[in-house]
């Protein structure tokens, strides 16, 4: 209430009552005089005038923003005006699908089993090929005992 009184926001009736009280209450009197001093000191603080080109600079920024946005949206404006919502929904759907497909977890882990299978099969195949080569060598030795390569 004292704060409101010092900032002159009290109605006349309350002001009169408070002023009567302040006359007999030293604590409130001290508070009120201190607050009025603060109020007076703050009154002395004048703000600097606004620059003369404030509006011009602001409208320049607005124009720059508007023209940039216009350039970007110009090709889509007729469509947006007529079918804004369906287009927005379609764009959201495409983006959503793209995001889902791009997620590594969404791609089936096909490569891992293939490489595992190759790792398992390859030694068998090599062993099989070596056995076939050995059989051919044996057969060759039996057919041409003289010409057989001793190193092999």
């Amino acid at each position, binding site marked *: 209430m004292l704060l409101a009184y010092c*900032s002159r926001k009290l109605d006349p009736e309350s002001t009169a009552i408070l002023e009567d009280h302040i006359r007999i209450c030293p604590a409130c009197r001290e508070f009120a005089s*201190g607050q009025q001093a603060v109020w007076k000191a703050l009154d*002395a603080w004048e703000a600097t005038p606004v620059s003369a080109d404030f509006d011009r600079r602001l409208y320049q920024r607005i124009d720059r923003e508007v023209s940039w946005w216009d350039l970007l949206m110009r090709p889509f404006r007729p469509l947006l005006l007529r079918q804004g919502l369906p287009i927005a929904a379609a764009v959201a759907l495409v983006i959503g699908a793209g995001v889902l497909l791009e997620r590594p977890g969404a791609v089936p882990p096909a490569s891992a089993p293939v490489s595992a299978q190759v790792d398992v099969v390859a030694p068998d195949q090599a062993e099989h090929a070596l056995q076939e080569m050995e059989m051919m060598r044996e057969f060759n030795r039996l057919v041409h005992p003289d010409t057989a390569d001793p190193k092999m």
Partner: protein
Amino acid sequence: MDYDAELMLRVKDGDGASFGVLLEKHRSSVVHFLYRMVQNHPVAEELAQEVFLRVYRSRSTYEPTAKFTTWLFRIATHLALNALRDGKNERLQEHLDDDSSDMPVRQISDSRPSVEQFMVYQARLDEVRRAVATLPEKQRAAVLMHKYEEMEYSQIARVLNCSESAVKSLLFRAYETLRARLAHMA
């Protein structure tokens, strides 16, 4: 609905002239509030430009749910608090220590008493500015809105997004600090 909100709704409908009216009406109070918050004139004007730019950008989504000035000062306070937290307050400190070059220009005559009066005025002003600058940011914003914009507690509460009793508490503590620092100036 207040007249400013009506103007803003016209801006929403594409009436650029109404934006001009709002700018004309609130330009000074926004710049002055920001100046007293950050105590640096170029920074205050830069922030004020951003305030009005945000108002303009938000025109299409504007709904008059609160007083226009509440919304306006909420943007301004938000930007000022961010600027202070982003380190522009360091510039403020530098500014307080310089020769106050962006103070209002006053005509000084050649006579000696006027120069003295001017010096006294500057000294008092510096003291006031320093006292306000030492207040915590929210207290400072509350005091500036209460003192210079003559806002009600309820409106300050909505700007600062707190309760009315919290605003009263902020103001009480802020004025207590200011009384301790400035009471001797009576």
